């Protein structure tokens, strides 16, 4: 039993995550392109961030004391957009503008268009370095906020990431928490076939990080890990969140072919029905 989140809240967040997954499917089908697997797999974590972990104010996205959430794996931005909309940053209706001309919801995040995005991202490997810079400056200026940085596991192929991993270890950036979306897939296939990452935990430990492994769909575990990170004073913390790409829709779960494509309208209808009925657990679908 968690000391940091009570059971009712967990239940509430699980329901919220389901709504966010529905929004992701709806926005991707409206966009006609985009990434499906990653955003679905990270829906629980982003729900936990925006509805429990982050110290933030959707009505004042530039609030200087807000926690910083850096999305290094910019391609999963639909989950961030959906979570932000549900949290009140902008109308949920605006999600349908994803990837359209003139939209604030660019195909990959562009920070100047939409307050609250923190960075522009997409090219993989760079977000952790930016998070390091923010964390370093925050410590210089005695700011109390925390810096979170999400990364894909395939992204760890990039050398830039390891430069930043060394940097954070050297400077003991204890106000920085990294989150790896460990779903084991990337565009060309399984991560361990494309470029093996294991042993991953030991790698980060060897670079002087505190490492935690959680079930990325267990909100309680993830909240607890983020809280534990706050108590680690000498090291940055990396949370390896084991997730299932495409989580919530059995047909696409764990299928790397869904990394970079969006559902067709008829598929979306089916997926939404599955989400609304929780995969058949609820018999009568009511919309």
């Amino acid at each position, binding site marked *: 039993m968690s000391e940091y989140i009570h059971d009712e809240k967990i239940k509430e967040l699980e329901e919220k995550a389901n709504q966010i997954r529905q929004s992701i499917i709806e926005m991707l089908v409206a966009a006609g392109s985009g990434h499906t697997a990653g955003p679905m797999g990270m829906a629980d974590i982003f729900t936990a961030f925006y509805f429990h972990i982050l110290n933030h104010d959707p009505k004042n996205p530039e609030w200087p004391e807000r926690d910083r959430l850096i999305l290094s794996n910019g391609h999963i931005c639909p989950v961030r957009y959906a979570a932000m909309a549900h949290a009140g940053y902008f109308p949920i209706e605006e999600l349908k503008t994803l990837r359209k001309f003139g939209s604030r919801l660019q195909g990959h995040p562009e*920070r100047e268009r939409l307050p609250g995005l923190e960075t522009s991202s997409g090219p993989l490997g760079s977000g952790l370095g*930016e998070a390091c810079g923010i964390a370093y400056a925050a410590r210089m200026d005695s700011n109390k906020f925390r810096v979170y940085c999400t990364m894909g596991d395939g992204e760890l192929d990039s050398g830039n990431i390891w*430069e930043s991993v060394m940097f954070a270890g050297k400077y003991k950036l204890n106000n920085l928490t990294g989150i790896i979306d460990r779903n084991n897939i990337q565009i060309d296939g399984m991560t361990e076939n494309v470029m093996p990452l294991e042993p991953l935990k030991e790698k980060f430990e060897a670079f002087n990080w505190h490492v935690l492994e959680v079930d990325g769909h267990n909100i309680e575990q993830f909240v607890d890990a983020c809280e534990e990170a706050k108590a680690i004073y000498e090291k940055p913390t990396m949370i390896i969140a084991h997730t299932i790409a495409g989580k919530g829709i059995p047909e696409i779960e764990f299928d790397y072919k869904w990394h970079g494509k969006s559902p067709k309208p008829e598929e979306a209808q089916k997926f939404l029905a599955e989400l609304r009925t929780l995969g058949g657990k609820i018999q009568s679908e009511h919309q």
Partner: protein
Amino acid sequence: MNPEAKLAENLLDKSKLEMVPTRMGFGKGLVEAGDKDKRVMALCCDLTESTQVHLFAQKYPDRYIEIGIAEQNMVCVAAGLALQGKIPFVTSYATFGPGRNNEQIRTAVCISNLPVKIGGMHAGVSVGPDGMTHQALEDIALMRVLPRMIVIVPCDALESQKATLAAAFNNQPTYLRFGREKTPVFTAADTPFEIGKALILRDGKDVAIVGCGTLLYNSLLAAEELSKEGIECMVINSHTVKPLDEKVIIEAAQKTGAVVSVEEHQVAGGLGSAIAECLAKNHPVPQEFIGAQDRFGESGQPDELIEAMGMGVNSIKEAVKKVISRKAGIDK
């Protein structure tokens, strides 16, 4: 010489000029910027003395960050610092920054639109004996094509100092290019410097030599020698390659009808290209391009390489004569 440029006295006698590397002007300018504003920070990749960042690091150790040999991360960290209101200067050899970390500069600095300052050292062939791998001849082109990026190539150590100070407070992504080798200080303390404002160093009616960086000194020597042959060259210091001072360059083309661009850089994509783009749209005139002619450098002494690669005084003189003959062809 143009009296308004207030250049150094006896500037045509190289033996009377102080010889200082432009990177040293950067080092001083950075300290000066740090004195003025505590938001100024410096980052370096294991090259603190080469980049002259050690001056800043000694004075402001709390605002200096050693990154190790990790140029990509340096830019990312700087972007993060800038998001928190800092004014970070990232420094390395120009071949590595903005060479190796080009994509990080594009995304984390320019797309994010943050006032990160990039100091590229040992640019051109001035790193001499180290050879082609370390001689950056493509950096102006890399930076000039990035939307939002300001590109400045100072001509001597004094101008480098002024440019560094000005860049610290322009609130824009900015690239500053410096050389390793000692070069003549031919401007003076009161020589005007303003980002985006080209400076006419010498007036003339026959050809406009428009240059940036330390080769401007060769341009002045060439102009002086040509004057003895009855050819009067205007010499323009276009230290800001982007945004180009189009007004001054168009007026010079209108007045002289011929241009020679001079830079220690590939002729593709650098200052010469910027001038050609501007004049093609506004006032096309014959142009000759002094610079590396689609080739890498090699080991040798800097002066020797400048000569061998066609960027010496004689090459500039030949280019002037050639462009005059082309102008005559058009007149007929």
